[in-house]
């Protein structure tokens, strides 16, 4: 009994230590810290949106502003073609854009890590086929696949998440598989096998902990592409028609002729919001990658 407690506390001490080390390495990168602060601000705004702006402001029928009115005291960022405040729309849009981007990434990472670890660990026919399939998905143009699937599956939040996850898992699979193969060759796995460890134990206790840091870095870099993909799909008119996201705001803007009406206040806020969030995630992801990816470590 005491021995398990000691080994567990040892393990946790080691994890705390390595976390502290990684954090120190991360903190030394200015771009990563800037990205983190930006992200924190956006997440706080997205969470606080219901407090800051009442949901009734999103209703088309209760809109009080003029048709595509320029910024004024009452509407700091102007109004859309039905008289709703662009500021309110952009704030509420952040919730959906972030939610879809994060959910799709989590799903993609789960699939990617599972397939990557199992195909690298088990190998054989299964590994070969898994590798082929992920290669195949990787080569296909992601937007084409996403559009085709959404066109036949129908537009909803669920299908959007599923489709984005489906086109973004193979990158993670590749990365995880390569790392699994490296870990696989290390002596401590041989020791574990010699002591009679099963596949499950080897994968969850030895392979996975070594793969997770890389997965974290790649997940952080997947979120921006998922958000960009969601906004592109929503802008094309393939988003859930019942919700407001940054892409769907811009879809309404272009279909209601905001460009020819010179309504810059309609275009700038949602687009800049996408840009800032994507940039922040990329800065964080690149910093994390530099911390965890041994190939890049010498680069700094």
């Amino acid at each position, binding site marked *: 009994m005491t021995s398990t407690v000691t080994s567990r506390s040892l393990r946790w001490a080691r994890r705390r230590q390595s976390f502290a080390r990684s954090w120190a390495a991360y903190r030394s990168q200015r771009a990563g810290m800037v990205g983190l602060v930006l992200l924190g601000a956006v997440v706080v705004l997205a969470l606080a949106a219901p407090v800051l702006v009442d949901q009734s402001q999103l209703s088309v029928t209760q809109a009080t502003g003029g048709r595509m009115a320029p910024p004024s005291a009452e509407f700091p960022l102007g109004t859309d073609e039905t008289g709703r405040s662009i500021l309110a729309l952009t704030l509420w849009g952040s919730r959906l854009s972030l939610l879809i981007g994060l959910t799709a990434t989590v799903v993609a990472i789960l699939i990617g890590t599972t397939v990557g670890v199992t195909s690298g660990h088990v190998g054989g026919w299964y590994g070969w086929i898994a590798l082929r399939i992920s*290669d195949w998905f990787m080569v296909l143009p992601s937007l*084409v696949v996403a559009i085709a699937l959404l066109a036949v599956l129908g537009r909803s939040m669920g299908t959007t998440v599923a489709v984005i996850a489906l086109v973004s898992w193979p990158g993670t699979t590749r990365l995880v598989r390569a790392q699994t193969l490296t870990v696989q060759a290390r002596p401590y796995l041989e020791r574990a096998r010699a002591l009679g460890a099963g596949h499950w134990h080897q994968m969850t206790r030895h392979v996975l902990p070594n793969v997770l840091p890389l997965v974290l870095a790649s997940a952080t870099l997947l979120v921006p592409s998922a958000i960009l993909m969601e*906004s592109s799909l929503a802008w094309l008119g393939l988003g859930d028609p019942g919700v407001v996201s940054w892409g769907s705001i811009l879809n309404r803007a272009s279909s209601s002729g905001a460009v020819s009406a010179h309504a810059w206040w309609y275009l700038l806020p949602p687009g800049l919001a996408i840009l800032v969030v994507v940039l922040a995630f990329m800065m964080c992801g690149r910093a994390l990658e530099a911390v965890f990816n041994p190939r890049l470590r010498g680069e700094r």
Partner: protein
Amino acid sequence: MTESTPSEGDPAEGPEDATTANGPATRPSDLATPADGASTEAPSARRPAGRRGRVSSGFGRYVAKHVGGAAVSLLLVLFSSFFIFRLIAGDPIDQLTRERPVSPEERAAMRAELGLDEPMWRQFWDYITGTLTMDLGDSFQYRRPIFDLIVERLPATLLLSGTGMVLAVLLGFWIGARTGWRQGSRFDRGHVATGLVLYSAPTFWLGMIVILVFARYLGLFPVNGMRSPSTPPDFWSQAVDIGHHLVLPVLTYTAVVYAGYLMIMRSSILDELGGDYLTTARAKGLRDDEVRRRHAVPNALLPTVTLVFLALGSVVNGSIITETVFSWPGLGRLFVQSIFYPDRPVLQALFVLFSSSTILAVLCAEILYWFIDPRMRRSG
């Protein structure tokens, strides 16, 4: 045994893998030995199937392997497109007749016209043979053969994405080589930051802003389309007109994409920085610029050249969005227009076309890699 073969479809990091995973046993002398009799057991141990060390037979096997892989991928595309558009999608008649009521007889007639009353295996067979013989059926919205539609719109797409891609590659490589060379300098940081910001901008939004500024406010360029109706029909006026229309889409496309090439070239240069041959070149008394241009860049180009081919998937993505923003009469816009009609035969044909062109581009990259990287030839 499941060690990934470095040459096989590895879009993300193929070149890097290829340089590291080939094993240490390759020496230039292996290439020179004409037949297996003279060589030691080292080459045969490395390549159990191949008895001869000759380059030609290795190339044949290499090409056969990759062509086979690409053929399987293409077949998978055909299968999946049938699966998506015929099996998941349900009955197209429902969607086509959403607006008006139809009698059961009319429905049956429409189904017969579209070949939907045949058994599924029969439809599948017709679809496969039709696609392979370029008989893609008729478009619902244009009532014309899809093949003609594609041929008509292909030049516009090639013009836009070709120009954009060439510009993005040149700009990205040119800046990337310089930023990597002076890593950490203000020049480096400035360009990486600019590239990342533009890379983070959604293509469609940047396009709208570009139209707003350059076409609406400044009035320098046309708002959309590819040619104005008022232009005289002679060649030069048309060419100038199309060029004038091309500027903004290409600007948008290049701005978003070039950062990717910049980062590729930059990291490739960084890999070369410590090389002894660069010290030698400097010791010979070459100027810094010459060391970069004549020694570092050619070596750094090696792994990046194939990445240009491998990026064709993102070229397709970018051209779909750019064409839609600028109402450019190409394939990408046709694809988007077909979503909402819904013109399922066109969606299906373009899905197959876009997917297979990226698969073929990857195949080209793999074959090209054989010629530009001598290490591939030695270790098969």
